[in-house]
């Protein structure tokens, strides 16, 4: 390649970087949802400890903000996901469409994983301690990954058709605040959607526009009480 084309590529890249913006979200979270009832109780019902109130449900690991626009993921690459034995390192893993999910078993117990929505998504066979297994998320979809012998082991993989998404960090004494930041968002208009646990939250989507005049956008987001999901 001669010098001229190289210079052109660098200029284009610089110009592109110059048009990218950041989207920051500030969420006004409702009271966290009730802890789900015990699916398989023992001989006794669970009881609150007498020393201190029980901790509210931490919605952060299951709450994600997604900007949906015309931009499609480019070379999404590989995403690592830790399998910790009886749970995944992240209960909800968000990956751009086309990315490869690499699962690493960091526990001392072998696990045989399967995607409930697509049994052929993950190659058959156990993942022994220390071993890995990968699959490619080809279409935007929510996958539930589990081990049929260990039903309480359950993780979700959300495949989104955009490279712009971020997990929400929850703070406050009662988990009433949340924030997220999506960097390097290309110029354009996007819809901001919130995903919680098993589905999209039923609320009006915000329109987010990244323009040359306004590269950093802060979006106030209000989440309806109870984290209602769209049907």
């Amino acid at each position: 390649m001669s010098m001229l084309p190289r210079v052109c590529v660098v200029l284009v890249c610089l110009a592109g970087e110059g048009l990218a913006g950041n989207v920051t979200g500030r969420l006004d979270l409702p009271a966290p949802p009730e802890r789900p009832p015990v699916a398989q109780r023992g001989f006794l019902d669970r009881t609150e400890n007498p020393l201190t109130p029980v901790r509210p449900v931490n919605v952060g690991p299951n709450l994600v903000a997604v900007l949906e626009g015309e931009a499609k993921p480019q070379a999404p690459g590989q995403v690592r996901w830790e399998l910790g034995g009886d749970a995944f390192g992240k209960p909800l893993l968000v990956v751009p469409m086309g990315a490869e999910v690499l699962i690493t078993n960091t526990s001392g117990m072998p696990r045989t994983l399967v995607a409930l929505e697509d049994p052929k998504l993950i190659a058959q066979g156990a993942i022994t301690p220390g071993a890995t297994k990968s699959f490619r998320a080809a279409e935007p979809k929510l996958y539930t990954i589990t081990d049929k012998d260990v039903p309480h082991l359950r993780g979700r993989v959300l495949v989104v058709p955009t490279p712009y998404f971020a997990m929400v960090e929850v703070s406050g004494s009662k988990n009433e605040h949340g924030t997220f930041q999506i960097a390097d968002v290309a110029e354009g208009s996007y819809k901001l959607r919130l995903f919680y646990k098993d589905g999209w939250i039923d609320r009006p989507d915000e329109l987010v526009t990244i323009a040359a005049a306004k590269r950093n956008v802060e979006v106030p987001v209000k989440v309806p009480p109870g984290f209602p999901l769209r049907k």
Partner: protein
Amino acid sequence: MFWSKIWFFFVAVTGAIALTIALVLPRPPARAMVTEEHRRLTVACGVIGILLTDDARKRVDLTGAFARSEDIIKALDAASGADRLDEGRMKTVRSTAETVMKGIKGDRQPDFAVLIEKRGRVVARVRLDDRLFGDLASGRPVIDDALAGYLRDDLWEINGTMYFVSASPVVKGAAEYVGAVVLGHQVTNELAKKLITSLSVDVAFLVGENTTASSRTIALDQVALKGGVGALSGQDISRDCQQNQPFPLRAGSEELTGLVSRLPGEAGGKRAFYTVFIRRPVELGFLSTLGAVAQNDLSFGSFPWIFVGGGFLLVLGVGIALMLLESDRPLRRLAAESVRLAKGDIEKLAEDAHPGKFGSIARSVNIHLDKVSREAKAAKKDLNQVLGPAPEGSLGTIDLLAGALPAVRPGGPGPAALPPPSEFRFGESGAQRAHPRPATPPPVAAPPPPQRNTPTSMPGVTPPATPANARAATPPRPMPAVAPPGPQSQGIAVEEAEGDAEELLEDEAVEDAPAERNDPYFKQVFDQFVAMKKSCNESISGLTYDKFAQKLIRNRDELRSKTGCREVRFTVYAKDGKAALKATPVKEE
């Protein structure tokens, strides 16, 4: 026999009813026993559920106490603040936990412990997989709840072993969660035995088809257990014992009855359950009930011997009485009458005097007697064909000489009536029943008698019952006053035949041996014949003894050859006002 049959029917029906009662009677108590057995199983199943729940409460309390241990709080607080967990920390925390566990008092020592930092990672394990650490345990519901601040229990199945586990949050100070602890108690045979101490049943804990603990070392029928668990329905497993029915269960050759109840928790998701079972009581049938009778059951105090004995005697007495009335006595009467018939005291059996079948027997005997009589008559007809037609009223004898009977028979008047010639009699004795023979020849009546065709009142000459030697012993034989054509002696049957006397006298003489012609018997007959001729005013010119004797001999031989008789008796009588002669064959039976 009617009432005897009724009685036998009554006795048979009573016996059948008694047998039915004996066979059926053990069943109600057997059903009651089964019902009681089921009730006992249901109660035991429920009690075991209560005991397990109570045990869970104690374990949760124990875990809470463990979690409040200062050493545990410090260890988990430190682990929660660390960026990563290493083996050194693991060993330190494990050692600390082991020390705390050893300090637990009571007979329910935990079999393992798991210590988890506040983010859900295992800091250390004690006594079970104690080299593993760092893995995320927060996925387990009981640990997730404990990290959130709840106390609760659960059941785990680890490597084919069932554990009752309980979890508690570890709280530092008054408000900060620093992790959680889990204590596990293995479900052991000792625990199973302890649970059934006062229940008189057995219990086994299973996960799927794997028996993890049992109060008895026994291989239960997994198919039956699977069916029992499959029949369980409803979400509330605490009502399994009350809502489900006991079912037959086998263990080798042992017959059991079992009841199952699902177990809760994680292990419940792997089809964990417990079964309560007892030995199925032997169903006592009739024979088994008899075998179970004790000596005391048959004592006078507990068994109505008087009632049973009285009933037996009553039934026996009525049966015997009916036998006597309807069988024995009529049979004896028939037997006695048969003896009289045999003796000749009666001619037929009295049919109407015997009831029922005995009358039928009498009728059958009489019918046979009539048949024999008819056959005898038929034999006489054959004689008539041989000897020619018999004179009217002669009843089958051969009228050899036509002539009228004398009015008065020699030897006195004859009987008013004679028995039919076909009737047979058995003499009481040979001497008594032998035909009587007068010691002297009967006098010939002088006036001619009125015309009578019946030989019943005529005089006759009876031949000897035995051949000539007998006659030689008693010559000359007198004519009997009565000459019935009946048998002459016991064992001798007599058939009579009549012939035409004129023909006999007119026939050519046959030369016979002079010795036979001089037989005094023939002379006697000749004299009677001459006397009868005279009494009938017939001429006796031309009548010579030799010619008469030859004719008699010839006719006697002829009768002998044709009838097979031994002797022939000749009787003189009057027929149509003329002297007649009748030849009667005497045949010994």
